[in-house]
């Protein structure tokens, strides 16, 4: 029983990282931009938040967790938006190829994050491992009273606030895309920019905003990873990159619906950690088990293309840049 609870907890914590990533990417892709820079963006979000918390904690006389939390949250979101801005400028204004630009952003983001992450580890001196204990504790705080309500309390309430933020953001983005006027315009831009342009929707503005804000949301995944998942430290082991690609996979799995991404993310988490709770696996065969999320994504990809249901398809102009004079 307790191992089942800890499996579910591990799945939810894991899922939260990729849920942020995929929710942001869904918003981006709805504007027709396929941003393969998600791993880089999550890296940048993670390191920006960590560096902010580090400088705050090492400069403030008595660091306060909530202040560190707010500062790092804001800086992390802003830095990830800037990463999205680089992508937007190159693909929207300069009409560069989206795949190539996204992959470059992934290389760049991982480089920036690990360069500074490594330097921070050096600066932290001593054991050579940066730690922002105060801020990280604020990220991981939960209500003991609620978490004490037996197994349900543990499964539902024993997490830092960002787990719930991820769910709220996913629900809000779904509502925004499907129900709001602006969201309708955004979908029009992603499906047929020429038509949207003719209906006097400012295509450039929509693409820029959706991509930058989407990147900001994806970046929070990196922040959650550094602050909560690995408790306010930095590791140059490339985990964020793996998680970033899983977030891209989750977008497909959820067939561009952020709400579907919520349970999808937790399912990925379950699949990812399942090997840990199955007895009798060797270290080798557990590696085969870690294939599951990717295999499931491929199966979903195939099923979606087989069924050809219109509401499950990617936005029609996904991956293409728009040039008015080309019409």
């Amino acid at each position: 029983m307790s191992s089942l609870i800890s499996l579910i907890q591990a799945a939810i914590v894991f899922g939260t990282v990729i849920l942020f990533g995929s929710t942001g990417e869904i918003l981006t892709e709805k504007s027709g931009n396929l941003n393969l820079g998600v791993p880089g963006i999550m890296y940048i979000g993670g390191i920006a938040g960590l560096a902010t918390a580090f400088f705050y904690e090492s400069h403030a006389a008595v660091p306060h967790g909530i202040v560190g939390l707010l500062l790092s949250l804001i800086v992390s979101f802003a830095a990830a938006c800037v990463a999205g801005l680089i992508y937007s400028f190159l693909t929207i204004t300069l009409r560069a190829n989206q795949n190539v630009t996204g992959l470059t952003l992934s290389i760049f983001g991982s480089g920036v994050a690990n360069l500074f992450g490594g330097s921070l580890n050096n600066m932290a001196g001593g054991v050579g491992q940066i730690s922002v204990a105060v801020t990280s504790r604020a990220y991981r705080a939960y209500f003991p009273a609620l978490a004490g309500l037996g197994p349900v309390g543990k499964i539902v309430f024993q997490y830092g606030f960002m787990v719930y933020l991820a769910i709220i953001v996913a629900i809000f983005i779904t509502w925004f895309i499907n129900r709001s006027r602006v969201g309708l315009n955004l979908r029009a831009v992603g499906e047929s920019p020429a038509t949207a342009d003719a209906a006097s929707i400012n295509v450039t503005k929509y693409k820029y905003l959706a991509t930058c804000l989407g990147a900001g949301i994806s970046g929070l995944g990196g922040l959650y990873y550094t602050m909560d998942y690995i408790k306010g430290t930095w590791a140059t082991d490339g985990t964020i990159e793996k998680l970033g690609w899983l977030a891209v996979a989750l977008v497909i799995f959820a067939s561009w619906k952020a709400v579907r991404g919520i349970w999808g993310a937790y399912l990925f988490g379950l699949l990812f950690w399942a090997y840990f709770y199955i007895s009798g696996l060797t270290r080798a065969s557990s590696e085969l088990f870690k294939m599951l999320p990717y295999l499931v994504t491929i199966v979903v990809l195939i099923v979606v293309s087989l069924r050809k249901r219109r509401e499950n398809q990617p936005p029609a102009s996904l991956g293409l840049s728009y040039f008015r004079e080309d019409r």
Partner: protein
Amino acid sequence: MSTVHHSHGVPLIRIVKRTSLSRPHAWAIRVLAVILALVVCALLIYALTNLNPIRVYNSMFQGAFGTGKRTWVTLRDSMTLLCIAVGLAPAFKMRFWNIGAEGQVLVGGLVTAALMLYIGASFPTWLLLVLMFVCSAAAGAVWGLVPAVFKARWNTNETLFTLMMNYIAIQLTSYFVARWEHPFGSNTVGIIPRDGSKAGWLPNLLSEGFNKDFGWNIIIVLVITAAVFAYLKYSKHGYEIAVVGESENTARYAGISVGKVYMRTMLLSGAICGIAGFIAVSGASHTISVSTAGGRGFTAIIVAWLAKFNTFTMIIISLLLVFLEKGAIQIASEFNLNDYASQVITGIILFFIIGSEFFINYRLVFRGKGGHRA
């Protein structure tokens, strides 16, 4: 969209597609972009280290070409990157987004390592090398073919499918690394074959022994590069690839079986990437790990795209990128930064090159200046 600033309905800057641009002019723009990027990187290096950037670039050069050994290693790594990019060229020319080179390289390397481990001792060297070459190509081809079959049959999105295939390959490699672990607990396979016989290593070209020059790596890759160039430019298959890439509907109208072209081309693309895995294992690292491909599958995508599918242009771009990588690793160790500085520098330079394509394809026209070139 071209509107930057409205005034009396005429925008301040208009963007016009260039009809044609002479090749020297286009290259001048690209070179300018690289120079600009190097200036930006110099500023960044100065900000991080307070060192004279010229000195830093000098030590970058030393890092890549400072000694004979370093020059060979730089050439060797450029050739591996080039091989992957050349493998991607046919797929990209057909507008088939093969993001799966990383996985195709890995399975190629995995098969090579398996052959070295299990039958290395019992075969003559030349036969073993031929066998590894063929099997690695076959493994890469299978990895490339699977997404192509689904794309041909059901139009399944190939970008995402090939991306996922990378991770299947990575987990498969992790599995075998754990099985072949040596010494126990190291989570690495160590140098193979275990008996120290070096059976299955690509030998030196210019002298006896191993690891002094990498002439065979260079010859194999350059032959493939020339062959793919000719295949794309002069063969009927190459023509069909070009037509499918321009427009699927045109291809169908012309009686080309698009699905067949997809599968055939991806078989070739995957096979060449698999061979790159063979070269990486047999000709360079002599071991296998999840970083055998080391992100080069992704970097090669950028190489192939920037070279506009011209495999000879890819030689220059591969050399440039590997030079940057080696140089940045050198400055990192000399000036106490970490290796990731190379990724940052590479990223910045790629951003500039990607951006410069805009000024090659389009020109800016300022209001009131009519047809003047901007």
